[in-house]
């Protein structure tokens, strides 16, 4: 294992804008019931072509935030601000402490709609006609920024870009910010929107699923958690909903636009996460797969599991059938895992468990491993677990290396 360690994180809040609404319990119920929120979208300039996507059309940000403000926002800013608001509320931080709360966001597609609209006006009319209100929303950091402005978050702020693994990467960064005392709590989220212009490119690159073609289904929404150091959460008597106890990562030797297909990278990432969490492979009750419907990557992931678990792979599950693919939906898988641990049972895998893994979901699971895989050969593995009865015993002070002066 590579050295390096950041502290365990307590998840004290969850907020979602999902295809099935903004209630986490309803999201779990919908997945368990095998519901889908899929519609066909025509890529820009291809009115006769239909590509299935997972949508959040029923979401209305004005149920949560003043209509006067949010009506001008791009979809991801709306998703992000509302999921952050709900996460902070559920963490008991509905009146945020300003400078002591940070926000980290990840995204694939934030800014897509205002960007396409702004450029289209520039091209079809002239640059002077392009609406100035759109431009600030074309930047990928608009969702985190709007959430921070709306909710008064003045702590550390950043937006990361790391394909589908960005939520895990952001959790790693959040751990550092918390351990360094830069914040008492950090909202970590990932958000995406489905935009017809971007979909045109995805379609023509033959990456997304289409009639007669394998691929993934793009999804949209926002999935947020509030993380704190366990000792801080205990001090303010916040309910600890789950622990993030180990994060591992590895990068396969892939091009920037290729998913990793090296089983060893999957396995290395898993081993790191397990070791950092002080868990043996046999202690893992379930694994949330990053498999998004593309056969070569799914096979590599399966082979990676074989390297770590041999013939005793735990129950495997993937919820991308319901959530779709993207930075946001991948965060959604982690959030569902956290919520499922809290509830004590896992929603079924409508796509079918991995051959060779345990077929029945574990009863009352306590420890899970969530896979993230993205283009550029990026792999992250995150260990999530239910907090123990005596939380104090797992709070291990972390020696922080001094900054060099």
């Amino acid at each position, binding site marked *: 294992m590579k050295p390096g360690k950041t502290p365990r994180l307590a998840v004290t809040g969850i907020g979602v804008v999902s295809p099935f609404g903004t209630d986490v319990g309803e999201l779990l119920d919908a997945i368990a019931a095998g519901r889908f929120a899929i519609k066909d979208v025509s890529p820009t300039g291809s009115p006769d072509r239909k590509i299935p996507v997972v949508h959040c059309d029923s979401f209305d940000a004005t149920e949560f935030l003043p209509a006067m403000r949010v009506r001008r926002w791009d979809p991801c800013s709306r998703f992000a601000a509302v999921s952050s608001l709900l996460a902070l509320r559920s963490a008991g931080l509905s009146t945020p402490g300003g400078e002591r709360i940070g926000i980290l966001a990840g995204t694939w597609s934030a800014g897509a709609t205002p960007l*396409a609209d702004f450029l289209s006006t520039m091209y079809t009319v002239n640059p002077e006609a392009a609406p100035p209100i759109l*431009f600030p929303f074309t930047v990928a*950091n608009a969702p985190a920024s709007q959430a921070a402005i709306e909710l008064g978050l003045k702590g550390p702020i950043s937006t990361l870009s790391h394909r589908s693994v960005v939520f895990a990467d952001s959790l790693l960064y959040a751990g550092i910010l918390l351990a360094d005392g830069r914040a008492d709590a950090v909202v970590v989220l990932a958000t995406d929107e489905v935009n017809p212009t971007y979909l045109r490119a995805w379609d023509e690159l033959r990456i997304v699923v289409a009639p007669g073609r394998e691929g993934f289904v793009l999804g949209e929404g926002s999935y947020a958690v509030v993380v704190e150091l366990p000792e801080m959460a205990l001090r303010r008597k916040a309910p600890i909903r789950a622990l993030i106890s180990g994060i591992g990562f590895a990068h396969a030797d892939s091009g920037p636009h290729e998913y990793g297909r090296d089983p060893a990278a999957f396995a290395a990432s898993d081993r790191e996460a397990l070791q950092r969490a002080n868990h043996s492979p046999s202690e893992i009750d379930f694994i949330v797969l990053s498999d998004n419907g593309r056969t070569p990557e799914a096979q590599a992931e399966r082979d990676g599991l074989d390297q770590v678990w041999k013939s005793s792979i735990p129950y495997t599950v993937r919820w991308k059938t319901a959530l779709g693919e993207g930075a946001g939906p991948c965060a959604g898988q982690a959030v569902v895992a956290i919520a499922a641990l809290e509830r004590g049972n896992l929603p079924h895998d409508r796509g079918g468990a991995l051959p060779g893994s345990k077929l029945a979901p574990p009863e009352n699971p306590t420890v899970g491993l969530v896979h993230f895989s993205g283009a550029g050969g990026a792999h992250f593995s995150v260990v999530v677990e239910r907090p123990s009865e005596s939380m104090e015993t797992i709070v291990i002070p972390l020696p922080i290396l001094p900054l060099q002066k």
Partner: protein
Amino acid sequence: MVTGLGAITALGSNLAETWEGLIAGRCGIGPLTAFSPEGYRTGTAGEIKSLPPLSTGMPRKRISRADHVGLVALAQAFEDSGLTVGRDVPPERIGIVLGGGVSGLPDSERFLLGIVSGDNHPRPTLPINHPPDSTTDLAARHWNLHGPRSTITTACSSSAIAIGYAADLMRYGYADAMVVGGSDVVARLTYGGFNSLRSVDPDPCRPFDIRRKGLSLGEAGGFLILEREDAARRRGAGIRARFLGYGITSDAWHMTQPDPSGSAGARTYRSALRAASLEPNEVDFVNAHATATPQNDPAEALAIRTVFGQRVLVNSVKGSLGHTLCAAGGIEAVLTVRSLETGIIPPTVGCEELDPACPVDVVKGSAREAPIRIAVSSSFAFGGNSAAVVFGRFE
């Protein structure tokens, strides 16, 4: 420790040319060539005039201009550091965190232009470099960087925050060396966007000057190699400066406007000082973000004055290079390190008559020699995503 620097800017195709131009007070902002400026309020930009070719073995297929700038400038940083991955540091102990944003957008713009023009078959590979992390992934693969990898996309503070996150990853033991910085280029979206906000100056921009009207966009690649001090000393690396810490804060104020009181910027500087365990009076020089918009410069000057008082020296390189957006934090960090090494602060080109609303000691007219021990480079971005990085002279 900073052991390597690389830069490509409107003033030169390497750091030496850029530095020489800055010290001489030259302006690299000129007529825009990337596309027709017809219909815009300005026709200027700080474009890279002479982009060196990619070296043998570098990826060439389907790379964007931002990737090209990044790969070439990053190669300079590696050469400057003398660091060889595999020999001096195992691949899994060196990582990369870059700032990115515009990235391959100019190619995506051609794709969209094709669609709106009725072209039924715009080349679908055009948008593939649009993700801000394309350059990061390309560089990681080319230099065999298997350690931590990430990309920060917070608009104008992207590569400053990237430096901070990378240093954090080293401090927490995830890597012994990190590649940091960023590259960005001029695109129609950013050119049209700032045009629509009426934030551009028809002439080359004038940071802190009373006649300033707005910013000039620019292109650049600016990269640094960070190494642990023990490792750098062990291999006999030339140490160029110490990285001491960074500040990262949210203004929570407005998407495009700074808090005019300067209090948000002051929090960023204080956050950086806390991380670096420094007192304000220990800082000698601030390489300011200073975009030359009417609103930003006074807010930043007030922040500097509030935290550091009037004794600190201040400059902005944007009058020479333009605003290089996601690369700004990287290139300005590189130039801040050069000021620490040489004891020379380049003049703020375009600043002739200091705006009284900017009550700080702006270096203007000609370069100034000063015994700089500690320097700060600040970056203030859309959405109030603010950062400041602190470097110390290596003695």
